[in-house]
């Protein structure tokens, strides 16, 4: 398989508003035809980065290369990039059809071509019955599809989506996630989506970038980010993680109570330094075999069924917070546990991640 081509290269881009540095020296490559997610807590600079890609904000520093050409100072109407706004920003005085055809009218295409392309995109996005409505007469999901159709019809090289699903309820969100994936596949356009919902990015993205305070922490596939978080923050932000604070040794971490967690210690972490060992809830087993590298006993504080899974809160001497353990309902049925039981937990050294604290 040949190396995928880089479509957009963000090169040491920074942006500050007065004293606030919203984006701080970010470098990223976005590849042709991928579904890329920008993820991070509120205020980390996701929208600002996206707005620089769309042309509404000029970077104070750095370059934005599209197909190798620097577009950092190109006005928004001259870029083959389109943005789907967080608020949708549908023109309230225009019908759905007029909203969707607006972008093509700006390209001064012949009326017949505009008409056929609008009809096509309206049927792809299942908006034909609503073509003559005004935005105020649409539901949240319909508005979202109009905003998408309006951006897609321009056939941009790059489509930017700022929290496209933020305003939708949970159920509709799930459906729209799949819908977006399908559409992206169908039109073959590169998508960059902003979200602060980590689950959403895990479901949708081919690759993702995690930002914090305007800085890039990690950029990789969802699987790699989930399994090998770059630091403690990413580990905590993506998915659920149990942490054991302590001091680094050559082969693990010593917790405050003297218990040892075995795992691979990063080379940068010198013995004696503050460190934190971590493990995912689904990697923890109940009633582990004797040879399991890490074992600890604790008291079950609470149980919660989550569909196929059972989630346990187990109080241990390792950390101030109870351990979260996820076992399949199947396994739980085989050896039932209930609140108040004292049980043993165990996990392998290979499932331990150790970070600087």
């Amino acid at each position, binding site marked *: 398989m040949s190396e995928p081509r880089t479509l957009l290269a963000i090169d040491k881009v920074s942006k500050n508003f007065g004293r606030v540095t919203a984006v701080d020296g970010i470098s990223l490559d976005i590849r042709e035809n991928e579904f890329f997610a920008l993820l991070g807590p509120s205020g980390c600079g996701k929208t600002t980065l996206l707005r620089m890609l*769309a*042309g*509404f904000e000029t970077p104070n520093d750095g370059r934005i290369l599209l197909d190798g050409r620097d577009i950092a100072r190109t*006005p*928004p*109407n001259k870029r083959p990039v*389109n*943005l789907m*706004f*967080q*608020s949708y*920003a*549908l*023109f*309230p*005085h225009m*019908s759905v059809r007029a909203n969707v055809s*607006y*972008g093509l009218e*700006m*390209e001064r295409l012949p009326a017949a071509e505009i008409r056929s392309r609008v009809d096509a995109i309206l049927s792809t996005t299942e908006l034909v*019955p*609503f073509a*003559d*409505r*005004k935005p*105020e*007469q649409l539901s949240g999901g319909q508005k979202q599809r109009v905003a998408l159709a*309006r*951006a897609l019809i*321009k056939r941009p090289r790059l489509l930017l989506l700022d929290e496209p699903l933020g305003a939708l309820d949970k159920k509709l969100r799930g459906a729209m996630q799949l819908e977006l994936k399908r559409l992206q596949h169908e039109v073959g356009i590169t998508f960059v989506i902003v979200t602060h919902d980590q689950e959403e990015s895990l479901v949708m993205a081919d690759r993702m970038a995690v930002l914090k305070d305007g800085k890039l922490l990690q950029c990789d596939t969802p699987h790699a980010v989930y399994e090998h978080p770059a630091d403690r923050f990413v580990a905590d932000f993506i998915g659920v993680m149990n942490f054991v604070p302590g001091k680094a040794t050559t082969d693990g971490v010593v917790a405050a109570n003297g218990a040892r967690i075995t795992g691979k210690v990063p080379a940068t972490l010198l013995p004696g330094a503050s460190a934190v060992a971590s493990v995912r809830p689904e990697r923890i087993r109940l009633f582990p075999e004797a040879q399991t590298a890490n074992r600890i006993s604790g008291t079950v504080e609470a149980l919660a069924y989550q569909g196929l899974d059972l989630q346990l809160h187990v109080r241990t001497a390792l950390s101030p917070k109870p351990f979260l353990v996820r076992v399949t309902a199947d396994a739980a049925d085989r050896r039932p546990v209930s609140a108040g039981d004292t049980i043993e937990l165990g996990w392998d050294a290979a499932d331990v991640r150790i970070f600087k604290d």
Partner: protein
Amino acid sequence: MAPALAWLTALMVVPCALVLALAFFRRGTYGGIEYTFTLENFGLVFDPLYAGIFLNSARIAGTATLIAVVIGYAAAYAIAAAPRRLQPVLLFFAVLPFWSNYLIRTYAWIVLLNREGLVTQLLRWFGYTGEPPSMLYTEGAVIAGLVYNYLPFVILACYAPLSRLNPELAEASRDLGASALTTFRRVILPLTVPGIAAGAVFVFVLSIGNFVTPALLGGGRFQMIGNLVYDQFLTANDWPFGAALAMALIVIMLLVLMAQAIAADRASGHAAEARSNADG
């Protein structure tokens, strides 16, 4: 509630009805009122001489409205584009002159435009040596006075929809490939028409019935209807004709307000229509 309504009825509704009635009577020989029914006062309104004054008033009011709307919209746009915390201050100072006495604001233009006023002196300072230009007592002076007096209201009326406009709409338009000018024409302007209409109606209605500005800054004796009405009551002593003119003024005003209401209705009617079509 009742005393207030009684007050309005006794001192506004009844007097206005009285004026309406007055318009159907005849003028007495020595200026009094002869209580015989006639329509000739209304006929006189359409006499070329007076109809001409109506047209003149409409033209002056229309010109003043146009200028005030253009300047006022530009100012409102600039204020709405200023940093948020400055906006209330700018708006306050834009409206402040509106609250000083109307006569005085008009008088200020006499001071400015008279033969030895500031404008003439500025011209001299730039090397002009000829006769002082005659600016006062012209139609231009009347228009300037009207624009000056009502501009703050237009700014206020246009600012309201501009400041409520979601800035992302303009960005969306740019993003879809529109230039700044096209964005203004196709997105910003249509969405702020209600403010423009409100400001324009206000300026037009107040200008066409104006008395003070044409009396102080205008040249002729009856440049606008207001002066004509004034004259019928205080000089010519033809109250019935004055009453008919006043009624004509009210009719014009009502027509303008109705036109605005219909336009606003149609805008919302479109939406309702689209809704029923889609559901049907």
